[in-house]
C-alpha cells in the first residue's frame, strides 16, 4: 500500500498540552476517504487544537498525525497540498478584491489555468459571490468572507477539507449550498472534517460523529451507533451530546 492509499486523516495517540493544561489527551482517530466527519464538543473541549494539529499548525507533544498517508511534520508540504483548512475566523487579505484573493490561492496551490477557467466561475455561481467579488474584501461581512474562503478552499479540489465552524454567519440558502458542496466532495472520494456547535447540521449531514470533552474523545460513531451506545434510540443528537458531556462532568 503506497502512502497515497492511507486514510484521509489518521491521529495516533495524540496529546497536546498548553503548559499544565492538557487540551487533547491520547486521541486516536482514523477518518477514511469519502467521509463527512463532524467533531463536536463544548467550548474549550479540544476541537480547535485537534484541527490545528491536523492542519500542521501545532505539533503534538505525543503521537502523530497523517493526512492522506503523509506525516505532518516530516512530510508537511505533501500533506498540506492535499488539505484545505478553513479557520473559524475566515482569513482574507483586506486590501485584495475577492477575485484577486481567489487567483492568489489558485497560484499558491498551483491550480492549472485550465482548471481555474472551469472551477472559478462554477464556485462563484454556487456560493453566490459574484456580486461583490470585485470589491476589496475589507468591506465584506463575516458571511461574505466565509463564502469567499470556502470558494478558495475548494479551488484545488482538496482531498481533505478541514473546517472549523463552517456555518457561522451564513444565510439559510448558503447553509444549504455548503451542505450540498460537502456531500458532493465526499461523493467524489474527498473527506470533510468539520467542527461545529450547530448540532442540527451535524445530525443532517455527518457520516460519523465524534464528541470530545476536556481533551477526551467520549463518543465516536454514526448517529445510530451513538444512540445504541447511550441506549436512547429516540434521542436527537442534541440530547445525546448533552447527556454524554453531563455524565463526563459528573
Amino acid at each position, binding site marked *: 500500500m503506497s502512502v497515497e492509499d492511507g486514510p484521509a486523516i489518521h491521529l495516533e495517540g495524540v496529546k*497536546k*498540552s*498548553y*503548559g499544565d*493544561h492538557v487540551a487533547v489527551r491520547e486521541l486516536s482517530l482514523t477518518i477514511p476517504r469519502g467521509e463527512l466527519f463532524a467533531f463536536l464538543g463544548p467550548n474549550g473541549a479540544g476541537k480547535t487544537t485537534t484541527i*490545528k494539529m491536523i*492542519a*500542521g*499548525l*501545532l*505539533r503534538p507533544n505525543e503521537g502523530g498525525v497523517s493526512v492522506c498517508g503523509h506525516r505532518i*511534520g516530516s512530510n*508537511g*508540504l*505533501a500533506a*498540506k*497540498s492535499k*488539505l484545505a*483548512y478553513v*479557520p473559524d*475566523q475566515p*482569513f482574507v*487579505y*483586506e*486590501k*485584495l*478584491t475577492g477575485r*484577486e484573493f481567489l487567483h*492568489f490561492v489558485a*497560484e*499558491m*496551490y*498551483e*491550480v*492549472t489555468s*485550465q*482548471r*481555474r477557467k*472551469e*472551477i472559478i466561475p*462554477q464556485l462563484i455561481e454556487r456560493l453566490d459571490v459574484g456580486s461583490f467579488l470585485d470589491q*476589496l474584501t*475589507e468591506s465584506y461581512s463575516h458571511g461574505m468572507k466565509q463564502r469567499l474562503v470556502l470558494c478558495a478552499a475548494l479551488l*484545488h*479540489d482538496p482531498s481533505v477539507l478541514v473546517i472549523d465552524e463552517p456555518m457561522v454567519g451564513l444565510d439559510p440558502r448558503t447553509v444549504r449550498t455548503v451542505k450540498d458542496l460537502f456531500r458532493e466532495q465526499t461523493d*467524489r472520494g474527498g473527506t470533510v472534517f468539520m467542527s461545529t456547535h450547530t448540532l442540527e447540521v451535524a445530525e443532517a449531514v455527518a457520516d460519523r460523529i465524534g464528541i470530545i470533552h476536556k481533551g477526551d474523545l467520549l463518543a465516536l460513531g454514526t448517529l445510530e451507533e451513538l444512540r445504541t451506545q447511550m441506549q436512547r434510540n429516540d434521542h436527537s443528537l442534541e440530547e445525546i451530546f448533552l447527556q454524554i458531556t453531563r455524565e463526563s462532568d459528573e
Partner: protein
Amino acid sequence: MSSGRSPIIAKPKLELLLRTKVRSLRNQIVEAAARAPIRVWATLLLIAIIWVGLYFLFLAVFMQFRRTPLEATVAIPLVFNFFFLALLALLSFSNAIIAHGALFAKREAEYLLASPLRPRDVVTLKFVESLALSSWSLILLGLPLMFAMAQLAGDRAVSGYSFYIIFVAFFLVFIPIPGSLGLLLAWVFARFFPRKAVRIATIIGGTGLAIFMVWGLQSLKLGNTAPEIWLRAFLARMSFVEAALFPNNWVTSGIDGALHGKSWDSLLYLCVTLSNSLFLSWLAVNVVSRYFDRAYDRAIAGRDDVYRVAANPAGGVSGKLFFYLPMPLRLIAAKDLRTFFRDPLQWSQLVILFGLTVLYLANMPTLQHYFRETTYSLLIPFLNLCAISFILATFTCRFVFPLISLEGHQLWLIGLVPMKRGRILFAKFSFAMTVTILVTGASMTWAIVMLDIEPIWALIHLATIVSVCYGLCGLAVGLGARLPSFDQTNAARIANGLGGTVNLLASLSLIGVVLIAVGVASWYAEYRSATGIHNARVVGAIVGAILLSLAVGSISLAIGSRHFDRVEA
C-alpha cells in the same frame, strides 16, 4: 469537477507572496487617492514642510559643529558613529517586535503556514515586511540629513550625484543588519521564552540600556582633571564605537568618504556593509526557517496565561486618578489606563523611557555642580526643558496617538454610548494630560530644585512644559482621530504608520518652535536685555510660545473631534 492540481507542491512561492503584498499596497494607495485625495495631498504637503524644517535644523547643527576644528574633525565622526550604533540597537529591537508579531501572533501567519508553502518563503516575506515597516520612517528622516550634509560639504567635495546615491545605498544595505538581528531575537524569544517573551525582552533590554546609560554618564564626568586631559581620556573611552568590526563604523566611514570625494574608500565600505548584510540576512532567514515550526508551536501553546482580576464598577485605583472627570468619562480614562498597563508591549516601552528619565534626573546634581558658577546658569535649565519636551513627545507619539485607532473594533460600542463622540476624545485627552502632567511636572519640579533656578524662570519653565503637554496631547489625540488606522490592533504599528509619522513630525515641529522661542527669550533676557526678564520682547516670545502650544492642542482636538463625529461605527 476534475482535479487540475500538480501532485506535489514544493516550489518556492516567495515571488507570489511579494507580488500579492505589492498588489495590496497598490490597492490601498488607489483607494486612499480615490476616497480621500485631500488627505493624501495634505499629508504629502505636511511631510514636505517637515522635511524642509529638518533640513535646516540639521544644517544649523552641523554648522555649529564646524565652528572649531576639533569639533569638526573629532566630534562629527563620533556623533555619526553613535548615531548609527544607536540605530543598530533601536532597529534591532523594533524589528524583533514587528517580526515576533508578524510571525507568531498574526492570523496571516496561521493561514500561510496551513498552506503548502515552505516556511522559508513565509519567514522571508515577514523579514522583508518588517524591514519595510521599521525602516521606512528612517529613510524618510534620512533624506533631509543627506541634503544638509551635502550642502555643508559644498560643491568641491560633493560632485555629481554619487554622494546621494552612495548615501541612500548605505541606508539600504545597513537596514538588513538590525533586521536580521531582530528576526533572530524574535525567534529566540518565541522558541525559548514563549510565555514571558515580552517581559524577559524588556528586562534584558532595560538592564542593558541602564548599564549603558550609567557607563555613558560616568564617562562624561569631569572630576578634577583639566578639560584637555578629560577630552583625551573621553575620546579614548569612546573609541570602541569606531571598532573596525562594527557596522556603524563602516557606514560612518563610507558616508564620510563619499562626503569628501573619496569614492573608492566609500565603495569599499559599501561592499563590506553589503556583504555582511547579505550574510546576516541569509543566516537569520535560514536559521529561523529551519526551526520555525517548533518555535511557532511553542509561541501558540505558550499563550494560555490567564489573567484574572476582580471588576470594580468605579474604575478602582485607575478611576481615582481621574476623580475630576464626570463618571462616564472617568470610566473611559480608567479603562485606557488599565488597558495600557495590561499590554506588555505598551508598558515595556514606557519603562525604558521612564528609566532614561530617572537616570537623567539622578545625574542632575552633577550638572548643577558643574555649571552653577559659570555663565551657563540658564542654559542647563533650558536644556532640561528641551530633554523633558522631547521625552514627552516620544510618549505622546508612541502611546497617546494610537488610543483612538485602538478603539477601531469597538466603534460600534462607542456609537451606542449615549454621549457625543467629542466627549470620548475629551476622555482620551484627559487620560493623556493627567499622566503626562504628573510625570513631567514631577520631573520638572525635581530639576528646578536640583538646579536652584530663579523663581521666575522656574515658573516660566513649568508654564511652558504644561503648555507643551497640552499641545502634544491635543495633537496626538486630535491627529489620532483625524488620521486613524482602525484596522490595526498593534499600537506600535499605528504609531509607525502614516498618521503616526505625521503626528511625530508635527509634534517635533511644535516643540521645536516653542523651545526656540523660549531659548531665544532666555538668551536675550540673560545677555542682551538691560531689564532682564522685564522686557516686552522676552515676555512676548514666552507668552507667544505658550499660546501657540495651547492653540495647536485646541485646534487639533477640534479637527479630530469633528472628523470622529462623522466616522461610521
